[in-house]
């Protein structure tokens, strides 16, 4: 609870000791962006940004606190994943086990278009052949 109070209200008052120096607007935009990509551990199917659960507010506070410390977006997400597991990240990272998820639709699209092209082309050719034979 205290975290929210500190971070939401006195965001700009913390010192920038190390890491990236964000402007206030950047902290706000980036903080919201990260909160929208993380899943609330308590509320079913809500991201941290939308969730009103106490834990979500605490984690939002944590995000802003880490941004104030100059941590990058990736560092913050890694921190959250380490603490709450992969499940918290709405955007699974690309690796061997998620390759099908990320590249599946693109692959399916290419395959479907190629098949459609081959089938159509084949039928068109056959039709022309038949027309020639009839002549």
């Amino acid at each position, binding site marked *: 609870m205290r975290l929210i109070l500190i971070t939401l209200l006195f965001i700009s008052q913390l010192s920038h000791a190390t890491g990236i120096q964000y402007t206030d607007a950047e902290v706000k935009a980036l903080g919201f962006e990260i909160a929208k990509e993380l*899943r609330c551990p308590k509320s079913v199917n809500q991201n941290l940004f939308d969730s009103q659960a106490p834990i979500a507010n605490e984690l939002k506070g944590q995000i802003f606190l880490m941004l104030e410390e100059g941590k990058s977006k990736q560092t913050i997400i890694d921190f959250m994943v380490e603490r709450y597991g992969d499940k918290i990240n*709405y955007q699974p990272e690309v690796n061997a086990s998620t390759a099908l998820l990320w590249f599946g*639709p693109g692959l399916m699209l290419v395959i479907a278009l190629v098949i459609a092209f081959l089938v159509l082309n084949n039928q068109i050719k056959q039709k022309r052949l038949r027309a020639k034979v009839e002549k």
Partner: protein
Amino acid sequence: MRSGIVQSVHAFAADPTRGMSVLFLLAVFVGGAMTLFALKGEQIKSELDMHLKSKDSLLIAGNIVLVIAALSVLLGTFYPLIYDLMGLGTLSVGAPYFNSMFVPLAFIVFILMGAGPLISWKQSKPGQWQPIICAFVISALIAGLIIWLTQVTFELSLLLGFWGASYIILTICYYIFLHIKQHKAFKRQQIGMLIAHFGVAISVIGATCVSHYEEQALLRMGPGQGKPLAGYIFVYDSTVNVTETAFTAIQANIQVLDENEQLLTTLTPQRQTFKTNGMEMSQASIDRNLMRDLYVSKGQQLSDTEYLIRISYKPFACFIWLGALWMMFGALLNILPMPIRQQQKQTSAVPTPIQERTA
């Protein structure tokens, strides 16, 4: 209704009674359509009489992309489940994934959609492709100009959104121009198509603006406190307790003032507690007009008088729904059967009266 295996995005059917009515609707619509197809499917045969460069193949390609989009939703929904079953651990697939799949797929559909009406059936005529390519290039410039003028952080989905929308509108304009130039009359189906395509452009503009021009604030507010946002001033007026039949609520009265501090409206977001099961819900309050939605929601209590308040300014949010209405109207124009009299007029100019023949 719910097996609980897959967590749905929406929690609207948490109780089983509503599930039955959803199931009934599915049975009627999906079951009905499938039965009809099973009975009449044999009669649907199409003679393939087309070339690769034709309206027909554009339509086929468009349908393929739409099916892939649907499949990517299926994949995203079931991937966490399969992942878990295979013992790889748990993971979540959410909005960022679906956005990164849908935006490019939608853009491909838009390209095909703009080209389709301008290309002939069966085989395209020479000179039909150049205007489409022109429209594609010009709309890229328009999109770039809009982004440059509005000074917003660049993102790919922003560019693709404006690019697609302006491209569709340009091709529609060119279609109308061609028709008028050649003194052709518009058929009802063509008008329906134009309206539906325009609806898509409207929806895309709305969605693009909401995702990239939204302004929001998450802050602690109590009576007497205010916050300026996007040219409006939000003033927390008072907190009141509301009792309804089903729930009790703590309601915040938040006044919306314009730049000259004139009162526009009062928004009343609530934190509701339901009497039957003690469930707590946030009920947001929205002030809607054509140009923007103002959205205020109320979170937990932070001190004796102060609450966590979320304010959003969502420009052109209405366009998303208006576009859908256009699409619906356009589709209706196309599927409604023609009045019988009109059909007769078209088939035979002089209908022979039955009376005469029998007499």
